[in-house]
């Protein structure tokens, strides 16, 4: 694709649009919630552009990925962005999910955050979106590091924005863990640069293949792979490193929880996928035995995340621990170390990015109906007070349990299909089954809790709460997406598989 069409410029335009939105937000007037509207509009434009990019790449014949040199200099000298089907699909999904979680929590954000802070909050959200897009498109390992740092600072401060004691503590722990993670990533990048002499992914890949073939520097390569994977795993809350997550995601304001759980974790996971496929290559990963480690950690996360979620009474903390389990699914797909497995993992990234924000948004709506209490006991019968939130929660819970027709089913079935070709089939199937049962064990009681209510709640003898239109639209869109993903996932999976095939 050498024609300089609009599609060719979309990756660059979408990153820059979010950046410029972030830069001009502080000088905008704070009245009428202009900053938030600006971010929503920009996210919408990015979503439309990414949708067009998917269309253009899908209908293009032949080569369906291109490199975009950022600046006047070609590959090994200047920075580069790369866009293919996979990146386009992910960017589309990120922007849609972020847009919906911002609009859905329009009201709760206004309640939680004073007006003066809200403008800065929007700046950080825009920066977060820009860094996620950049992490998706970047073809340069050092660019990725810079945007990881933006992501870290912005993510920690959108946790701390609520300014209560618990959120400050959660943000501090999150920050400290993230710093360990980015320190490891930085050390590893230095090592890789020392070994290969490149920072761009493709030249690095050829050099690494050459080194492995000659048997040179195998040990430093292994160490740097382990360090960078560990660093990114800490940031994406793989199980043993995930103790910061429930505090951070459970105590922050709803929009932050939705974005952090649904998208920020995924940005780092996608970077791991990129590293595995494009920098090291699946053969090298297998030779260095990294896939087995990832597989075992993924299975542990799937089970232990659910076990921890079982113990929670606070609904937001429960959903946060469920995120840990879902991250485990993605790592399981990665650990299968095949194109099918990685495609299933990517599908699960998308599914989770669409479902988890919906769960957090509707949990926020439910707890708003119960005087902002978050314990499951207090949420009894809240379904009948805020039906939209109730419906959203039920749909999300069904999806997380993997009931056919809902989005979660799509990724679970594709993970199952992918594991048929793998030598680890028994383990992965057992883990999938066990984890589905465990998921049901905590989502079903939560559903029962919000559905059982006293008579006055069912028959509407309570003060009516006004559900804002934005909340309805967002939940409606989320549910529609959920069903779309659950019923028509095969074309999407095929699209992703095409993307993964040309990814390496």
């Amino acid at each position, binding site marked *: 694709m050498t024609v300089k069409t609009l599609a060719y410029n979309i990756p660059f335009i979408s990153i820059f649009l979010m950046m410029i939105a972030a830069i001009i937000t502080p000088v905008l007037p704070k009245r009428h919630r202009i900053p938030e509207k600006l971010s929503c509009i920009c996210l919408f434009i990015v979503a439309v552009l990414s949708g067009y990019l998917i269309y253009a790449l899908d209908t293009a014949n032949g080569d369906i990925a291109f490199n975009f040199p950022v600046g006047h200099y070609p590959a090994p000298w200047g920075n580069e962005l790369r866009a293919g089907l996979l990146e386009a699909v992910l960017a589309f999904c990120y922007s849609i999910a972020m847009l919906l979680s911002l609009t859905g929590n329009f009201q709760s954000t206004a309640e939680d955050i004073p007006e003066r802070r809200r403008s800065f909050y929007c700046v950080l959200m825009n920066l977060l979106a820009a860094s996620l897009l950049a992490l998706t498109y970047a073809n340069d390992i050092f660019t990725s590091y810079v945007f990881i740092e933006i992501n870290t600072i912005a993510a920690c401060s959108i946790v701390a924005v609520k300014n209560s004691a618990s959120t*400050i503590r959660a943000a*501090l722990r999150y*920050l400290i863990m993230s710093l360990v993670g980015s320190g490891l990533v930085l050390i590893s990048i*230095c090592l890789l*640069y020392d070994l290969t002499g490149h920072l761009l992914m493709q030249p690095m890949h050829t050099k690494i293949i050459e080194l492995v073939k000659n048997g040179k520097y195998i040990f430093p390569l292994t160490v740097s792979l382990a360090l960078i994977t560990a660093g990114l795993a800490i940031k994406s809350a793989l199980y043993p490193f995930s103790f910061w997550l429930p505090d951070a995601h459970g105590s922050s304001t709803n929009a932050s929880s939705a974005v952090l759980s649904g998208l920020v974790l995924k940005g780092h996971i996608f970077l791991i996928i990129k590293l595995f496929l494009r920098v090291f290559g699946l053969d090298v990963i297998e030779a260095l035995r990294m896939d087995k480690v990832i597989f075992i950690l993924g299975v542990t996360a799937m089970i232990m995340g659910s076990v921890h979620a079982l113990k929670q009474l606070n609904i937001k903390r429960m959903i946060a621990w469920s995120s840990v389990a879902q991250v485990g699914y993605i790592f399981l797909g990665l650990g299968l170390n095949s194109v099918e497995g990685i495609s299933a993992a990517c599908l699960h990234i998308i599914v989770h990015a669409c479902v988890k924000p919906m769960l957090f948004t509707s949990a926020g709506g439910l707890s708003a109906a119960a005087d902002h209490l978050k314990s499951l006991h207090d949420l009894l019968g809240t379904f009948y007070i805020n039906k939209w939130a109730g419906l959203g929660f039920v749909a999300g819970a069904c999806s997380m349990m993997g009931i056919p027709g809902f989005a979660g089913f799509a990724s679970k079935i594709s993970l199952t299909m992918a594991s048929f070709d793998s030598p680890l089939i028994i383990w992965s199937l057992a883990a999938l089954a066990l984890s589905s049962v465990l998921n049901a064990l905590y989502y079903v009681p939560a559903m029962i809790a919000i559905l059982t209510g006293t008579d006055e709640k069912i028959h509407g003898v309570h003060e009516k709460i006004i559900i804002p239109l934005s909340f309805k639209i967002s939940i409606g869109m989320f549910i529609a997406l959920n069903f779309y993903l659950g019923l028509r996932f095969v074309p999407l999976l095929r699209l992703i598989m095409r993307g993964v095939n040309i990814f390496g």
Partner: protein
Amino acid sequence: MIAKLLINHYEAVAVILSGIGLANLLLQRNLIKVYLFLAAKGWVSERAAPILLKDGSEWVMDVDKYVNPIPAGLVLTGIVVSVSVTAFALALTLRFYEKYGSLNIDSALSQMTKEQEILEAEAALKVDIGDNIS
């Protein structure tokens, strides 16, 4: 191995420093001291001696005359990142101190659990009263 380490002594020192920083990060319960890690992190990238552009009467553009400029860029980025992360972390710590009156994240933790217990007792009391009224 020792001989090789001596050749790469810059890297070795950087690695040991970053290890000390990491230990600080994990061990220190005092938040301010924790941020020493960041200073060590800056060191990691600072391994190769960076710039010089020499000027004879003509512009010398020969590879042998210069050191690799890329690490200089890495160092610069590392420093800037450290500065902004440190500022942010200190701001959070200030807030933390105002909320808990302590810089020790653990003692704050135990206070937190006590606090929660009292809160739970309070909530339970409320429930009792509500039952009685109805």
